[in-house]
């Protein structure tokens, strides 16, 4: 918790300073220009690549020069670490860029393998010495539960052996987990081209559906729900159910793979957002005036009066929190397991997007000013603010690993931010459409939907990506996209309805029955519900780093150290020592002291004597 408070303070401090940085924008030192030029080159390359592929769509392209200008500005803007003064910022900036060029070029598929490097970079608050003598096999690193702490510098032999034992156990468990990968049965989907001339983005849904098995080809469909659009939708956590919500007030829950409709209703009023609660039996709708909770049969269960005029709603499944961001500038956390409003905080500015970070339950709010704020229930202010775009943010997505934030702005740019430690932009790329909605799949496939097209990129965190993976043409303007969990399916909510498309390789092939099982029986579901309720995480445990609890905090002072510290002579670090001056000061002080003492003595002498003298 301590750490989190620090973060909050940091963010609070950083708020006024951010404005300073904006003012400082034009002054860039010469050393940096070379780096920026490199950056420009990279972006140039991207742009060329983007232009190189032929696209039939007659979308007007943005001015390339404009784009360069934008990206340059943002590179300066994105300094988040602004603790120090100007010189510090520049060094940070350099660091950020170095990172960009060197490290992110290489990582393509396995982001997790890089964490070793990251941890070494981390000057974390819990900077215990990490044991690097005993190695963990490369693939097993992601299974490691917390860092292995080296038992050095610990005097107590019991503690030392205990710590060593824990380290060994951690290593062993990671190895075992790696071994268990052998048991995973399913493989991911894919598209394999025969030669380089074949381009995957030329494939239409019709062609894909032809080549896959019958069951899968059934997953490509369009629902024409015309007068009720544009449509918002959400897949349930196990991917089995689909909640459709039209802006005109039509909603329905569909068991979409079997084509079974569970409920359908027309409310009459507008629906702005919709989300499932802990399972498909309950869902919440952000209606025109309030948020309502309905059950599977369409019965209104709750009317959440506090959530007045909601714009976005979302559900944090492990905390049982329903989060509403309202047009009135409130962000409200409602605990649906007890039916209590937990926290209500206020944001400022025109809200334009909201998404949750699945790894740490931080709510990301995107604003029309191009700023993304990260909110946690415990703090009244955002814990992190990132200036992402110069234009309104239209949509955001966080990767399943919680490491990357992808934002889309109405400036036709899609940007990737590193959420692990720097909160800086790793790279950006331009789209040919104004993105309305973006979504990341479990295997980090990015879908960007806008206008009448949906672009899909396969490795969005790879700086060298050139061309999209797939391009899908919608019937009408796309409003929302989401990848179906554990399926190679992308849902697109459009003006006129909903369409489901196949994106091979976008789904996680192996699900875990303990978390979300698409084929769960009723009994399993019931049991799961009870277990999850018992494991409900208290809302005040939401922090930027969810794994703080139970870690070792170093640098805690013992009584002896405290005592030593207290008895140390206090030295003002800012003072400049000049031995000659010091000597003079000491002498002067000594003189003064003697003078004072002698005065006291003499005066008392005098007065006492004089008094007595008078008497006699």
């Amino acid at each position, binding site marked *: 918790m301590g750490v989190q408070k620090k973060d909050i303070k940091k963010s609070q401090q950083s708020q006024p300073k951010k404005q300073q940085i904006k003012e400082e924008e034009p002054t860039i030192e010469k050393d940096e220009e070379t780096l920026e030029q490199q950056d420009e080159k990279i972006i140039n390359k991207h742009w060329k690549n983007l232009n190189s592929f032929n696209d039939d769509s007659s979308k007007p392209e943005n001015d390339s020069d404009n784009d360069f200008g934008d990206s340059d500005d943002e590179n300066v803007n994105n300094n988040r670490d602004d603790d120090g003064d100007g010189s510090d910022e520049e060094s940070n900036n350099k660091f950020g860029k170095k990172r960009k060029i060197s490290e992110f070029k290489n990582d393509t598929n396995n982001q997790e393998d890089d964490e070793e490097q990251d941890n070494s970079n981390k000057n974390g608050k819990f900077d215990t010495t990490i044991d690097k003598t005993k190695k963990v096999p490369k693939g097993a690193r992601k299974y490691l539960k917390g860092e292995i702490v080296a038992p050095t510098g610990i005097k107590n032999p019991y503690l030392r052996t205990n710590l060593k034992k824990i380290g060994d156990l951690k290593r062993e468990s990671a190895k075992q987990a790696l071994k268990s990968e052998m048991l995973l049965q399913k493989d991911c989907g894919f598209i394999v081209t025969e030669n380089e001339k074949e381009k995957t983005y030329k494939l239409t849904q019709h062609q894909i559906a032809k080549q896959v098995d019958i069951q899968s080809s059934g997953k490509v469909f369009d629902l024409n729900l015309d007068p009720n659009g544009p449509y918002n939708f959400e897949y349930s956590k196990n991917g089995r159910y689909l909640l459709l919500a039209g802006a005109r007030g039509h909603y329905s829950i569909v068991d979409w793979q079997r084509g079974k409709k569970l409920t359908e209703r027309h409310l009459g009023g507008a629906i702005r957002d919709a989300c499932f609660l802990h399972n498909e039996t309950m869902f919440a709708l952000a209606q025109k005036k309030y948020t309502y909770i309905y059950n599977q049969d369409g019965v209104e269960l709750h009317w959440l009066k506090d959530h007045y005029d909601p714009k976005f709603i979302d559900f944090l499944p492990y905390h049982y929190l329903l989060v509403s961001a309202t047009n009135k500038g409130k962000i409200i956390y409602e605990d649906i397991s007890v039916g209590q409003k937990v926290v209500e905080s206020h944001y400022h500015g025109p809200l334009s997007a909201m998404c949750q970070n699945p790894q740490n339950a931080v709510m990301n709010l995107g604003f029309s000013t191009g700023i993304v704020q990260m909110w946690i229930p415990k703090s009244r202010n955002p814990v992190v603010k990132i200036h992402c775009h110069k234009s309104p943010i239209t949509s955001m997505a966080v990767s399943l690993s919680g490491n990357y934030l992808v934002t889309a702005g109405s400036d036709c740019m899609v940007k990737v931010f590193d959420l692990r430690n720097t909160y800086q932009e790793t790279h950006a790329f331009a789209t040919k459409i104004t993105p309305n909605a973006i979504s990341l799949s479990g295997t980090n496939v990015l879908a960007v939907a806008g206008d009448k097209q949906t672009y899909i990129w396969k490795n969005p965190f790879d700086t060298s990506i050139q061309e999209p993976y797939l391009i899908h043409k919608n019937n009408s303007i796309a409003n929302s996209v989401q990848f179906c969990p554990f399926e190679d399916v992308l849902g697109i909510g459009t003006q006129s309805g909903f369409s489901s498309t196949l994106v091979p390789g976008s789904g996680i092939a192996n699900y875990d029955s303990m978390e979300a099982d698409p084929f769960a029986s009723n009994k399993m579901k019931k049991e799961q519900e009870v277990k999850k309720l018992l*494991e409900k995480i208290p809302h005040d445990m939401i922090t930027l780093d*969810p794994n703080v609890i139970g870690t070792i905090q170093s640098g805690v002072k013992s009584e002896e150290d405290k005592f030593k510290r207290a008895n140390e002579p206090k030295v003002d670090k800012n003072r400049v020592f000049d031995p000659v001056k010091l000597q003079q000061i000491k002498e002067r002080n000594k003189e003064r002291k003697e003078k004072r003492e002698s005065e006291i003595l003499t005066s008392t002498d005098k007065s006492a004597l004089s008094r007595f003298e008078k008497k006699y």
Partner: protein
Amino acid sequence: MKIKVISRSEEEETKEKASDVRKLHRNLDPNLHPFERPREYVRALNATKLDRVFAKPFVASLSGHSDGIFTMTRHPNQLNCVASGSCDGVIKLWNLTSFTERTTIQSHEGFVRGITFTPDGKYVISCGEDKTVKMWKLDMPEFTFNEDIVSSFNGKNAFTSIDHQRNSSTFATSGVNVEIWKHQRSTPFQTLSWGYGTITKVKFNPIETDLLASCTTDRDVILYDIRQNSPAQKLTTTMRNNALAWNPTESFTLAIGNEDENVYQYDIRKLDKAMTVHRDHVGAVLDVDYSPTGREIVSGGLDKTIRIFPVDSFKSREVYFTNRMQRIFSVLYTADSRFILSGSDDMNIRVWKAQSSAPMGILSNREKEKLEYQDKIKEKFKEIPELKTISTHRRVPKLVYKKRFIKNEIHKSNMRKIKNVAENSGQVVKVPKVLSKHTVKVDK
């Protein structure tokens, strides 16, 4: 161009035939299991709470004696057989599976001061204040007393305790002197003494079987080696020692229940300093016993509570009491270390669970696994304040609470004094590990 997408059939994913067991799919990818640490913490919290909810340590009360129970001992190889001797000279054997009395016999006039089984489990030897040691035969399948005395040994003074050597026919009694007897001989073949105090307790070491410890009324703990004809070491403490116990797994560790309300553990190789001080009782400790695993000590005393200490912690893990339980003269672990027996002034033997929330009865494999998992995560998060308060909080009788409060205040003021002295003399504050200087003198 080759295209493949994920495609699952329900039959394959769940079960192919109706009779099949449903498949459970696991994927240990940490991305699919977010909030692992917080969820574990919540689980640990729930487990500790449930622990307190299910903490019902009292199992049964064995009534039948018509006077306070002064001494108890367990059968060497029969798990459910326990003998107890009361202040009116009666010895009873108990069946712990059915909580019933097996048999009873009027053995002595006056107190039964000590009982012990012979290593083969066929005889009971008891000593009393009537200056006799009596040996009783047990009739086998039922463990009932044969009315005829096998042999009776007469001493010159009243006996205070008795203990049998392992794997031999030698036993030791205490009184004015320590006397070593054999089954076949009517007189002691060895008499040991050091100083003038009456010896109150005598215990053979279960591993080094010739080693014998005793405590006396003049604040001594004396160690003898019966192969020699003289005592080996003497430890003098500030206050009297009431009880002794040897660690059954570490031959050199000795626990002493002291009049100054503490239980001390000594390494007999270094008697000048106590290894551990267990300081939670608020009255004199009258009896201590090691669990057969050697990891825990149970103690009872004048404050009418039973406390269980892990051997390496100064704090008690558990405190047991009831309204009706009076001063506890004897405590005893059962041989499977799952239960604790306490004999008290109120004529009852009480049976307690050693782990207060442990389920009774046979557990299924899944239940066992779950309990093991819960123990592990409780262990993992035990230092977190929220969990610690729940797991360590115990309600105690008002008297105990007040006395402990006073004791703590005294302790605090002592610590303050040490700190102040150190600070004002410009030294580094060093907190002494043992506050009360228990050991006075060690003689060899």
